[in-house]
């Protein structure tokens, strides 16, 4: 049945639902909290359970492992492209305590849920190649002060802009919302920009909306959850953030149809030359640059960190982590395999085939790699400054509430004030 929306991904919006969070359990008085993980034992064949990877890069890593470890082969169990279905299959496996799945490829926003339910094993930090990894990504794989997963690849927001038109209008890529509006005003005066709209992101009722709203909130100096993990959406900063979107729709800065945009619809609109600016992920860089005539903006666009209220904005963190299923066998092999899989050497090797962003900052500055993936330095800025990760046990319920509220506001069903006040109440209920 359901196989749509290939885009459920990570949101890292300081969502900390429930009691949890570091503050709740990080104190030294907590005797059991940070106890050392039990030793992972057992060697033999294991499975790697993951979304499909069309680049073939992950397959090569597995083949390299299998060649070196004939006694401990890894078999890839491919799950559907749809992230909801991946999560559903993994949860089913955990519920029946099956040993069919060993190593799980988890979206960063599922990590807390799987850890809190003890569906995945805590990992021994000292045996993992965490040195050199971007802090935000490592942090996104911990829960309750324990490392439950290891970063596999990362993702962050970029602002795509039409460099040709900006140049013609004599303006720069904007770093603030206001500057973006002014840049648009200048560009849209140009005859060649007739019929274009200024800006779009992902505003369909979907994970993308949570991402866009939490980015706006962080970029306005607010946060959806405060440092203590309590919801903080009914604040002047988040109201500014929501107003940025709501006013954008009202003034026409954001086109009406953007309310149906997920990643691909926005990419298409930008690629067809309908938008001056677009917030999206790095993956669209290559399709936009395609020289086969499918993209009308090849060579005519540039990337920058997303804009904010008073300066550069704050991205959310996407990407994937690897973890070990609690009900699996041969966990010692699994740990070795994960260590091998996310090693800098393998991350680098995969870049030959795949454009998924690595988790080692050194690779973002490697000239050879940057010449193939020129957006990497900008992405590193975006990822390094990204918000601290969510520790969201009930992430699904929280993101649903956020989407409901923001969608109601941008479609004019509720005023921004009403929807934020309602959201605050809902999130508080979820947190308590």
């Amino acid at each position, binding site marked *: 049945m359901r196989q749509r929306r290939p885009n459920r991904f990570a949101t890292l919006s300081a969502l900390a639902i429930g009691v949890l969070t570091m503050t709740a359990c990080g104190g030294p008085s907590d005797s059991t909290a940070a106890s050392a993980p039990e030793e992972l034992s057992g060697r033999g064949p294991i499975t790697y359970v993951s979304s499909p990877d*069309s680049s073939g890069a992950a397959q090569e890593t597995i083949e390299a492992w299998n060649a070196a470890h004939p006694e401990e082969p890894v078999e890839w169990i491919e799950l559907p492209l749809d992230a909801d279905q991946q999560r559903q299959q993994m949860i089913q496996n955990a519920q029946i305590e099956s040993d069919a799945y060993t190593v799980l490829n988890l979206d960063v926003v599922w990590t807390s849920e799987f850890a809190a339910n003890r569906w995945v094993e805590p990992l021994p930090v000292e045996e993992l190649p965490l040195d050199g990894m971007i802090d935000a990504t490592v942090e996104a794989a911990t829960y309750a002060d324990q490392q439950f997963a290891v970063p596999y690849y990362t993702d962050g927001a970029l602002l795509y802009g039409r460099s040709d038109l900006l140049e013609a209008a004599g303006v720069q890529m904007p770093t603030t919302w206001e500057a973006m509006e002014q840049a648009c005003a200048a560009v849209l005066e140009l005859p060649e920009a007739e019929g274009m709209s200024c800006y779009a992101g992902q505003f369909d009722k979907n994970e993308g909306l949570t991402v866009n709203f939490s980015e706006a909130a962080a970029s306005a100096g607010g946060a959806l959850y405060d440092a203590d993990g309590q919801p903080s959406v009914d604040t002047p900063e988040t109201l500014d953030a929501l107003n940025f979107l709501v006013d954008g729709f009202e003034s026409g800065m954001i086109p009406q149809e953007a309310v149906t945009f997920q990643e691909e619809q926005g990419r298409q609109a930008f690629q067809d030359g309908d938008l001056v600016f677009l917030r999206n992920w790095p993956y669209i860089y290559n399709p936009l640059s395609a020289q086969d005539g499918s993209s009308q903006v090849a060579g005519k666009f540039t990337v920058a960190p997303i804009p904010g209220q008073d300066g550069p904005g704050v991205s959310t963190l996407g990407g994937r982590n690897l973890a070990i299923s609690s009900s699996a066998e041969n966990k010692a092999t699994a740990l070795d395999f994960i260590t091998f899989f996310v090693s800098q050497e393998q991350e680098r090797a995969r870049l030959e085939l795949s454009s998924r962003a690595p988790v080692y900052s050194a690779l973002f500055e490697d000239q050879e790699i940057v010449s193939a993936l020129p957006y990497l330095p900008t992405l590193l800025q975006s990822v390094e400054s990204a918000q601290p990760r969510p520790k969201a046990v009930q992430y699904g319920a929280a993101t649903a509430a956020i989407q409901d509220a923001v969608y109601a506001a941008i479609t004019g069903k509720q005023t921004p004030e009403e929807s934020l006040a309602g959201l605050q109440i809902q999130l508080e209920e979820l947190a308590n």
Partner: protein
Amino acid sequence: MSTVTQEVPAPPGRAPQISKAPHVRAGRRAQPARTLHGAAGVAAVVLIGVYCLAPFYWMLVSSLRRSGDIFDTTLLPSVFSVESYVKVFSGSSDFAHALVNSLIVAATTTALALVFAIFAAYAISRLNFRFKNVILAVIIATSMFPGISVVVPLLRLFSDIGWINTYQAMIVPSLSFAIPLAVYILTTFMKQLPFDLEEAAMMDGATKWQAFRKILLPLAAPGIFTTAILTFIQSWNEFIIALSMVNDPAVQTATVAISKFTGASEFQAPYGEQMAAGVIVTIPLVIMILIFQRRIVEGLTSGATK
């Protein structure tokens, strides 16, 4: 079957007396005399054809575009490309093999459901026994439960009995959805068929089995055939159980294989491949059904007149 226009006393059975019976004409099919003429007919065909096929046309056209201009809205691809078809068959999930698996699961389900349903429907429509209504009510109740709620209990059960990665793990649940439909359709059809023919045959010494096989079955052929199409397509389309019960690519079905198609990144839905797979799956299915329709119905009818 469509050409039975002549005064052939349709299925006469073995006993010559039967063909003389006045009511035997009741078995003749209705369609041929009622034809459709002229512009109205053409208009109706065109209308229905366009209605049914326009979205399919869009699927076909889209499957022939390059992945870069897959979102174009031109009525013909700006550049024809079989890229999507190549990707369907060269992808990591072996689509040709998955088609065979789908065929095995759907055909087995259909065959088992039909055999069961034919006898059940015969019993319900022709025999008198207690609790008939209770049985019918139970049968329909089984098809009412939302499929998604049965997955976890079934998964636990099949794991315990070692059915994970087997065909039966897909066929047995499919049967519980296919049998109610088949039983209901066939019961309705058999009830509508005149009892008299079988009665007459039995009076002439035919056994109940012979009356059933030589008289009832051929008459019920349109109904049986329709049931076969409907149950086949239903189990062919099943997804969530096939996904949950199987993780070995060697046993996975086509719908599951389609869900594992992937674009260049996790955000890019492989629309082209999905549409190509839709075309690949649909066209042979339709052709197969049309061939079977002719064969099966003819076969059953001619078998009856021998």
